[in-house]
């Protein structure tokens, strides 16, 4: 396959970016998208240029590091896949492909296609945990049965990889899907109950502080989510948030 690539180049957070055009020949349809990017970088380095910086690590769709906005879609065409799982067989010979970073105020560009997603970490630090210390004396793991359906739903919410595709896809750059997935995981488990109200309040507060936008229920986030995190999580978070606000003694 021969391709024309239009790639976003930006030296740093304050620099002005632009799209660069590269021709790439001899791409195999069996390559993953990132292997195609490796090939591009190899070509650039051998020609004496500076390669395109992009985040990637596990290359099997679970670490959440890769983050490319391809032809106007987070993680490119195809549903339920990350950029690293996208294969070139999804494209045609002669295609022009536009490759951009996640674009959101809360995710400043570090270089080229690499963005800073530490805002997500700070949202988790605000309450995305159950406050238990390491102890060799917690109760036996089977002491509290959890209905399978509830455990499965908690698991589904917990499969979020924190890639930020939801934010990148949302016209408001809202992080509601990400935050609600963590809120839901713990809201669905008995272990998460003691901090259920304070957790949702603190996480939402931090989310707002980071500059993520509001949710207007377009559902674009769930469509582009590589892990299929369900919109119902947002509904659950809204319910919990309202209920916590009503009960709050503050």
């Amino acid at each position: 396959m021969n391709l024309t690539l239009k790639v976003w180049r930006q030296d740093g957070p304050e620099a002005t970016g632009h799209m660069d055009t590269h021709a790439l020949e001899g791409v195999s349809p069996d390559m993953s998208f990132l292997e195609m990017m490796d090939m591009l970088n190899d070509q650039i380095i051998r020609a004496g240029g500076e390669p395109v910086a992009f985040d990637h690590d596990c290359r099997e769709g679970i670490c959440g590091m890769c983050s490319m906005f391809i032809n106007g879609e987070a993680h490119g065409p195809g549903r339920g896949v990350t950029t690293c799982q996208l294969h070139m067989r999804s494209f045609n010979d002669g295609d022009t492909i536009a490759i951009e970073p996640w674009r959101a105020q809360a995710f400043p560009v570090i270089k080229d296609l690499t963005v800073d997603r530490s805002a997500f970490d700070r949202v988790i630090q605000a309450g995305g945990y159950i406050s238990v210390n390491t102890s060799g004396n917690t109760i036996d793991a089977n002491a509290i049965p959890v209905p399978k359906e509830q455990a499965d739903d908690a698991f589904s919410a917990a499969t979020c990889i924190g890639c930020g595709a939801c934010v990148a896809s949302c016209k408001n750059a809202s992080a509601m899907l990400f935050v609600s997935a963590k809120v839901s995981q713990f809201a669905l488990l008995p272990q998460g109950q003691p901090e259920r109200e304070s957790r949702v309040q603190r996480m939402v507060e931090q989310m707002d502080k980071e500059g993520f936008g509001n949710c207007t229920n377009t559902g674009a986030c769930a469509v582009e989510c590589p892990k299929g995190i369900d919109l119902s999580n947002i509904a659950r978070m809204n319910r919990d948030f309202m209920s916590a606000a009503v009960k709050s003694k503050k």
Partner: protein
Amino acid sequence: MLDSKIPEGPLADKWTKYKDDIQLVNPANKRSIDVIVVGTGLAGSSAAASLAEMGYNVKALCFQDSPRRAHSIAAQGGINAAKNYQNDGDSVHRLFYDTVKGGDYRSREANVHRLAEVSTNIIDQCVAQGVPFAREYGGLLDNRSFGGVLVSRTFYAKGQTGQQLLLGAYSALSRQISKGKVDMLTRHEMMDVVMVDGKCRGIIARNLVTGELERHAAHAVVLATGGYGNVFFLSTNAMGSNVSAAWKAHKKGAHMANPCFTQIHPTCIPVSGEHQSKLTLMSESLRNDGRIWVPAKKEDAEAIRKGTKTALEIAEADRDYYLERRYPAFGNLVPRDVASRAAKERCDAGFGVNKTGEAVFLDFASAFKRYGKTEASIRGLSQPSTEEIVTLGKEVVKAKYGNLFDMYKQIAADNPYETPMKIYPAVHYTMGGLWVDYNLMTSVSGLYATGESNFSDHGANRLGASALMQGLADGYFVLPYTIGDYLANDIRTGAISSNSAEFEAAEKAVQERIDHLINNNGSKPVDDFHRRLGRIMWNECGMSRNEAGLKKAIADIRALREEFWKDVRVPGNATSYNPELDKAGRVADFLEQGELMCMDALAREESCGGHFREEHQTPEGEALRDDENFAFVSAWEFAGDPSESKLIKEDLVFENIELKQRSYK
């Protein structure tokens, strides 16, 4: 001499007695003690969180953009624990025994027993943290089986167990970060350890975004930096996984133990072409339900390779379920090293089933039928048709392994619900690593190694679902005790200064190396060298090894290393974000580590676990150990150049287990 510091007394009492006897640090003093944890996978996150909870000041580093992305996240199948929830005869002793046997009798009894003892606490702890393990309809935890054992002791969360456990540890870590007890440095890489008066007192780190070098001083340093499988270029490791932190420690005096013990995992998606950048694992849990086979007739295998026949056209009688044939007792659930070699043997003999001839089938057809029948019976269907049964069975399999099947479909462009998967062995895990004593301290005072980065628990072959167990055991339940015994002597030391001559010198050396790489102006990108190194390692130090091949590999690696330093091209500069520069430093270290691995493989004149020397095998082609001469840990001491490294032996003493030829027949 190496002192493993194993406590006296009966095996089952050692850990308890040890904990009763060690020195403790009082809470007020903990507040004036600093610990650095490098790496935030299961071993690192759990250690950083636990130490911070105890009151120490912790600094944690990861090269990724978030601690949640460490490669533990990709572990699929599960985590072992001797809970015996299934009432199938499991116990701490049995888990201990299985692990030592599975490791082909090349691990330390006391360490492994401790691991088995704390395994049950891990599950309790994780459930308390909100880790959503798979459950039965009654609400209790579900288990499944893994290779090399006869019980069901593996806890899991679909095919994403590592993700769920790491997010649990990441949560605990995040809580401590929010309290200010952990200073989390993301996109930071450790460049060297710093020694002051014979003790490890800090590190030189590099901020990967700005390129700045930083000095971090502490009373102790913990390396939780994972394995070095990427020395093979192609492996199931993440692209960034590297040996550099461990290698830097090695060059500062930490011995590297059993570096040749590499785990080649039998069930990975085969290589598709030259462009391949990494390999993807298909969880071992699939061997619970999948049956591995190749055609029994060579002409069928040839027809499949040419594309004139498909797997479905091969009659049942013409299939060779070679694991079930060779190992009737364990069948498809033999340990990884055995399953990998058996696949290689069939493919080398000409029975491989893809274009390259390097693939075997993993077939779920009989599982679809078996589960379908049970499901039909549950639903009360009378005389269901075969199609109905298969459809129901596929639903059950989907619920168990759905994400793995999706992943396969995505990568291989083939639907595993309709045709069998094709799989082949790939580099997955390294049992070798930094030598540590019972306290998990390396041969450098004050420098600890946990998780995959140490060598201690898995001998010559790791059993499935035991890496997660070890990472969390070390971080949550072992290190927090053992490090206290060391730090108790530091309560009067006061803060360590990073303005000393030692820090100065270490920083200067790091800077010089970076300058050399960035100004080298060679002609070939880093990956060019990495790929070539990988090819040498895979061909000569992979699934089977021999003297001539290893000697050739050593010479080839030396030549390649020389060429690298002359001709590598690192674009950009050292004062901004430059992933190529990061990679260059890592590959430079792999080019040294690879040589040591080959030297270790050459010195170990026996076959054991994942280390298969062609010269040492039974008439049936099984690994032939030499307990008389090789029941020891090879600990290598650095002496200026990898080729000069000295071999120090730690004899392995087996008091509780009788050494036997491993048999899974």
